[in-house]
């Protein structure tokens, strides 16, 4: 409805036969799966780690998949399953490195946005500009793209992952809850808080040209 590109998803029947071939250790099936799923897995990992660590994690994951796929029952879909493996590995690696800043799930508005309404609940400081360019056009702006990277990496881990899985990989809410271990209502808050931060960032960028 809003013109998001659909991801190329494997059809259910062919996914079942792909899984069967993977279980058999068919190297052609692995090559096909690696091409189909690695970009998504890499993007999951990139939300946690720098580029080279992310590539490393994805490579390691494929090796573990060879054994793990034997026990895979296909209840969650191959993409979801692979993304969960990647997310868990990344989280393990980060566990000691940086502590998660907890999101307050009772607050649905970012403080910076909440301050822009008056006591009657009307806009005091309404959004001034319309983001008229299409997403693709905006992304051609290298400075904005860098700015987005900076802001994404500053998001709390769960907000970042929720955004990535839901927005970039078009996972269904159920899948995201499953991968990230959050409730459906908390996922809604995570997504909304993260989108507001991006909204505020783009707004500042458009007004000032600065990140």
């Amino acid at each position, binding site marked *: 409805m809003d013109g998001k590109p659909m991801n190329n998803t494997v059809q259910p029947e062919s996914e079942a036969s792909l899984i069967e071939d993977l279980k058999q250790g068919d190297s052609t099936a692995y090559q096909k799966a690696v091409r189909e799923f*690695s970009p998504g897995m890499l993007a999951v990992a990139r939300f946690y780690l720098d580029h080279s660590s992310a590539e490393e994690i994805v490579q390691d994951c494929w090796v573990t998949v060879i054994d793990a796929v034997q026990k895979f029952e296909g209840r969650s879909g191959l993409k979801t399953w692979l993304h969960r493996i990647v997310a868990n590995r990344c989280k393990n690696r980060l566990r000691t490195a940086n502590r998660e800043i907890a999101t307050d799930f009772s607050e649905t508005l970012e403080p910076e946005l909440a301050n822009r*309404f008056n006591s009657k609940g009307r806009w005091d400081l309404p959004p001034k*500009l319309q983001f008229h360019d299409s*997403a*693709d056009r905006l992304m051609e702006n290298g400075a904005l793209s860098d700015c987005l990277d900076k802001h994404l990496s500053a998001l709390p881990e769960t907000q970042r992952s929720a955004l990535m899985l839901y927005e970039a990989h078009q996972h269904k809410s159920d899948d995201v809850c499953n991968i990230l271990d959050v409730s459906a209502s908390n996922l809604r808050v995570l997504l909304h808080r993260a989108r507001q931060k991006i909204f505020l960032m783009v707004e500042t960028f458009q007004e000032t040209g600065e990140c």
Partner: protein
Amino acid sequence: MLMCRDLAEIASDYIDGELNGPRSLSVKMHLMICKDCRTFIGNLRASSNLLSAHSSGKADEEFLRRIDERVAEALSVRKNKGSDSE
């Protein structure tokens, strides 16, 4: 009546089609009369699309080939282990 702040709170749910009928209708009614909220919803939706466009991961061919190699290696180790135990 739905105020701008209320709308801002449920804006993502509206964008994602997660609101029930009456709630979604009250958002639509508010948007008809409130230009600021129309801009807000439009910009929030643009932010969401921006993320989709930004994060679609690309993997280069060399990286994929390295995975192929490691997978092939692991597959052959597995095969050998399998034939040993048989």
